[in-house]
């Protein structure tokens, strides 16, 4: 049995965080939490994560986008799959059809809209982890 996957969740809403975290913990993932972009980036530097769950609207605006961009520029962090969980998918979906791309043109692996049904959340997390495992293996 492989060791437990390490996930990081960055979201500024503590109640939302609780909800996501307990679903993932129950499914036997280790979940770390950061409540703002600064702490989130610090956590990413300190530890190797298998997946990042990222909120977009934090602080004074779309600060989650900044994190995704910084990760894209960092050779090590670029490898970590990002699952965006956002409250504004509706507007995004309307503007961009079914493309999984954020309006600020950040390529992301997946995008889910808040609130996320547990079954859905676990499916996406599992498939992203699987995908990144395969990507690493083919290198």
């Amino acid at each position, binding site marked *: 049995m492989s060791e437990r996957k390490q996930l990081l969740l960055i979201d500024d809403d503590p*109640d939302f965080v609780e909800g996501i975290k*307990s679903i993932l913990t129950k499914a036997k993932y280790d979940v770390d939490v950061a409540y703002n972009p600064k702490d989130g980036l610090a956590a990413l530097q300190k530890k190797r994560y298998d997946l990042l769950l990222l909120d977009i609207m934090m602080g004074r605006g779309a600060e989650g986008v900044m994190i995704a961009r910084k990760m894209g520029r960092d050779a090590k962090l670029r490898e970590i799959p990002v699952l965006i969980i956002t409250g504004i998918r509706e507007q995004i979906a309307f503007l961009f059809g079914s493309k999984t791309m954020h309006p600020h043109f950040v390529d992301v692996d997946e995008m889910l809209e808040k609130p*996320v049904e547990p079954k859905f959340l676990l499916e996406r997390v599992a498939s992203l982890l699987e995908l990144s495992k395969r990507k690493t293996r083919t290198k």
Partner: protein
Amino acid sequence: MEKPSKILIIDDEEVVLDSCCQVLDGGRYQIATARDGTAGLRLAQEFGPDLVIVDLKMPGISGFEVLETLRAADPTIVAIVITGYSTVGSAVEAMKKGAFDFLPKPFTPDELRMITERGLERRRLVLETIALRRERETLRENFAAIVSHELKSPLSAVQQNLFGLVAELDDQLSEAQRGRFERLKTRIDDLLKLIQSWLRAVSVPVAKIRESFAPVSVRAPIAKAIETMQPHAVRKDIEIVESAREPLPTVLGDEGSLTEALVNLIGNAVKYTPAGGKVTVTARAEGGAVLISVADNGVGIAAEDLPLVFGDFYRGKAAAGAEAGLGLGLALTRRIVEAHDGAISVESEVGKGTTFLIRLPAPGADKQSRSQT
């Protein structure tokens, strides 16, 4: 102090230009002059006039052409044409082409001053209207953003936490407790859906729809919309009939949002038509436009309600018993149609049925046969 209004005068007669300048001078206006249409148009670009006074009869390009080019470049420019005496016909023609007023030669200084003042007043009103409209749009969009964050976020957090609790308690929950959680979830889902569709209705980004405009045949959105609503119709034993056989010109539009507009109309028709009824969707070319109508033989809309149907949150009374809508479909439809420079109208008779009519401009269509509306 406000900036002085800019006036551009185009006339081939030096003496007219001079006297106009003399009459209007006095620091209240900034005046530029040109001796012919070509020079006038060039000057208009860099000078950016509020008001243009142009002689209709000039050598070179005519005042009509100047007028048309000016108005095409900036429809907010107010133009006054100078006409020779006994040429009322050309004055009328100029007004049709967008001139604000005309000044028959010879005119007195007072006539010139008065018509200039009125023209500038018109310009102020036009600009003010545009500014207000823009402000209203911004307000609407900002409001939508605020509602999104302030209402949706906490609800999502509550819902997510509920999901989390159920996951944590999993094996400890009784069937009854699980049922209660399920009902809580449904209630919150409904609220989220309401907020969502309201947001859609107020924030359909018109400019964004326009970005994806391409020539489309309305057949595709009609077919897709019917396909989407067919299961609902079958369940209610309602027949959807399509008749769009004649060749149709293409319209410039966004297929996705046109489909959505039609889904709303057909969905409404199905909802407000009793079992065994019929919904007819037709499309035809007329003049420079494509007309799509969605007609039902359902309950109809009362005359006093007709002016309200395209507003936010209008909901038909007769929907009692049917699944409750949010009263936003038609508002959204209207915004989509308007984004296509189209128009939507409705006719209805209680007990007989309702017909919605969408008119979309079809630039490729034969302009000769444009109907006289």
